[in-house]
């Protein structure tokens, strides 16, 4: 039609522009990471981009997900059932007084740069972790190490200042990975380790690619040739990408509301398991009225944890009574110890001098959507006992600065993902500002006792104190939610440690 002709002339220019723009990024260039089963590669979604890949500099779980177990390894490993098993250390022995530990390193383990692993490397790594200059995020884990000695190429002798029940566990944490000293400077952007994968590339804001380490010390592993981690923070976008086939695994982004939707999709499967991520309503114990134990107990009674789990997680989160999670061997189920009882809550508040309730600000980081959802439900519940809460969403960096570092808050909601972190409650400087000599004493004892039965008793005692003093309100354990294409095998169901071990993941034949 001639009419169209006259109208299209201005659009020739636009079309040319469009073609130019579309042509620039190299249309038809080589495919990246779309291999799937045929290319023996896997694309995994994670929610947050790691703020650096140096596990000795940042406690971020995003870093652990990419690097820990995949690129770097430690002396001792936590396996899927939650046991401590040999890793880079083949075996170990403790002296009768449990103060001198001798580790025998595996032979034939090579770093990605070709050099073999020696005891000197372990010594370097541990001493550097202790060094205050390094500013290791978990420096306190290595406090009790008095000295490290490299007896020979394969033997490391660690002497402790005093007995520490968490010693082995600490050596299995993400901050204890072993790396070659010559690679210290590049840890942030190009970490070197002994793991089954080598870092191949990092496109900021988009993805990290790992490729298989041909010299990995376990024959036959890894099963995959390539792994790509893509950062997709939106649960919906991630789900859309999974359904479209652009990614193979939704590592951490599956929202609880989508579990049923995914289950109904042919070709996709859902993995629901346990983690050590304890979501809590933290209270500022240094600030009135939270300094009063009656107020804290009142808040615990005011909250209906079942409703919170249903409301925020569609019922997928297991309700908690204390900080000890179900994957911990010393776990005792105390969820029912303080059941939902708004009448009791009001009574306690009146006793404490707040018959009309009080006002509070609940700060949450919307970067983690479950904190917002949980917050909304809690606001409603607390309103029923007269506690008028205003929900304030603050950005993650602000949260870390104001809430975590400066303890400038009334209440907040966050998940603590590390295992065995009851020690946070024994630390009066932690952002809870909870200072209980009784708790600290029992905890100290539990750290130094190596007798399992005695430790169990001590942990029971700790849990009872937690219930009685209610420094925070423990809500639920965030579930392990993974969505993946049906052919992907080998993904851990439970996550006893924040990581994503991909060494044994493969495509079904």
């Amino acid at each position: 039609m001639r009419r169209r002709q006259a109208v299209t002339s201005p659009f020739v220019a636009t079309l040319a522009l469009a073609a130019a723009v579309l042509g620039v990024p190299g249309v038809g260039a080589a495919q990246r990471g779309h291999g799937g089963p045929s290319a023996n590669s896997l694309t995994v979604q994670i929610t947050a981009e790691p703020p650096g890949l140096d596990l000795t500099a940042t406690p971020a779980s995003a870093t652990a997900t990419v690097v820990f177990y995949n690129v770097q390894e430690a002396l001792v490993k936590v396996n899927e059932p939650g046991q401590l098993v040999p890793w880079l250390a083949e075996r170990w022995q403790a002296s009768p007084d449990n103060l001198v530990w001798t580790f025998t390193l595996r032979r034939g383990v090579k770093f990605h740069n070709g050099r073999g692993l020696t005891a000197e490397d372990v010594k370097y790594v541990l001493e550097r972790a202790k060094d205050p200059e390094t500013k290791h995020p978990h420096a306190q884990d290595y406090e009790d190490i008095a000295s490290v000695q490299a007896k020979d190429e394969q033997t490391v002798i660690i002497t402790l200042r005093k007995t520490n029940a968490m010693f082995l566990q600490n050596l299995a944490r993400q901050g204890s990975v072993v790396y070659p000293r010559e690679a210290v400077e590049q840890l942030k952007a190009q970490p070197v380790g002994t793991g089954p994968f080598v870092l191949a590339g990092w496109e900021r804001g988009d993805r990290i690619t790992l490729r298989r380490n041909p010299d990995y010390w376990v024959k036959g592993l890894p099963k995959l040739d390539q792994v790509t981690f893509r950062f997709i923070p939106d649960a919906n976008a991630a789900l859309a990408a999974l359904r479209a086939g652009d990614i193979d695994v939704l590592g951490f982004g599956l929202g609880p509301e989508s579990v049923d939707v995914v289950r109904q999709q042919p070709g996709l499967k859902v993995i629901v398991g346990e983690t050590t991520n304890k979501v809590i309503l933290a209270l500022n114990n240094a600030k009135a009225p939270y300094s009063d134990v009656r107020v804290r107990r009142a808040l615990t009674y005011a909250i209906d944890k079942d409703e919170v789990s249903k409301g925020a997680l569609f019922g997928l989160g297991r309700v908690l009574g204390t900080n000890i999670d179900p994957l911990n061997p010393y776990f005792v189920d105390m969820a029912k110890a303080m059941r939902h009882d708004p009448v009791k809550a009001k009574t306690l508040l009146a006793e404490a001098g707040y018959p009309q309730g009080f006002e509070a600000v609940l700060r949450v980081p919307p970067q983690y959507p479950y904190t917002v959802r949980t917050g909304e439900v809690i606001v409603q519940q607390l309103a029923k006992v007269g506690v008028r809460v205003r929900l304030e969403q603050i950005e993650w960096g602000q949260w870390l600065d104001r809430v975590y570092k400066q303890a400038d808050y009334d209440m907040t909601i966050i998940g603590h993902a590390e295992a065995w972190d009851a020690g946070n409650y024994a630390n009066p400087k932690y952002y809870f500002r909870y200072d209980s000599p009784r708790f600290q004493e029992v905890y100290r004892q539990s750290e130094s006792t190596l007798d399992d039965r005695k430790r169990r008793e001590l942990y029971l005692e700790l849990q009872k104190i937690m219930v009685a003093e209610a420094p925070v309100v423990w809500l639920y354990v965030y579930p392990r939610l993974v969505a993946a294409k049906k052919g992907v095998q080998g993904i851990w169901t439970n996550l006893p440690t924040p990581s994503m071990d991909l060494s044994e993941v493969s495509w079904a034949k």
Partner: protein
Amino acid sequence: MGVRILPGDPALLIMGTEASPEQAAALRRALGLDRPMASQYVDWLAGALRGELGRSIQYDVPVGGLVLSRLRVTAPLTVLAALFMAAVAVPLGIYAATRHGRSGDYVAMVLSQLGIAVPSFWAGLLLILLFAVRLGWVQAGGFDGWEGGLGRGLRALLLPALSLGLIQAAILTRTTRAAVLEVLRSEHVRTARAKGLSDRVVTWKHVLRNALVTIVTVVGLQLGQLLAGSIVLENVFYLPGLGRLALGAIAARDLPVVQGVVLFVACTIVALNFAVDVLYGVLDPRIRHG
């Protein structure tokens, strides 16, 4: 920054064709339409000659590179939306003008009123609901990159461009209709018809040629709005474009990135206006820049 006049004088369009000449002249002066082009472009250049854009605090990469990489999504999206907008609005507007006063016109006007009232992000959600959730023809958002192929990339941009384009089309329809009507009534047409040329010839040659100027102006201006609209739509469809970069940078207090995006958007809008002016001159030989 000015827009050249005649026909489809913006000042007249604003005040109505019966505005008195002095009022129109005053308005024109007020709108800066009489300022010389030269001074305007000097301003633009001076702004663009700023220093380096700096490095992003979050990602520790140059801001310029970040902005460019996000453009790979935002630019095609904006262009695609513009194409949809024009492809729907121009024919519809012409149709409505020629059916002026009859049912075709009213239908078009009602549709455009609805289109103006609908928020673009709601339109996006509805489109997702229909095409992704119910029908499953396209995915519900997300953008995988152009490396997977031109087709895949375009499919990902299809729904967002539609949402953005259709809503803006509502506005453009009305402008087109008005412009065409304007010209239909003008002397040219009457003269041409008096000369005995057939109806069709009259339409194609004169009406469109003259109405086109206004239409093109508005399209050019709406490109700026499309850019703004894409910011919100990037959130609906989870597209890694400029808008999400800006939002993320603001949330993370990544000032260099925020500044970079703001500067870029401002420059683009200036450039767009410039392009419109040039196009204006090309399309209507009566307008020559002194």
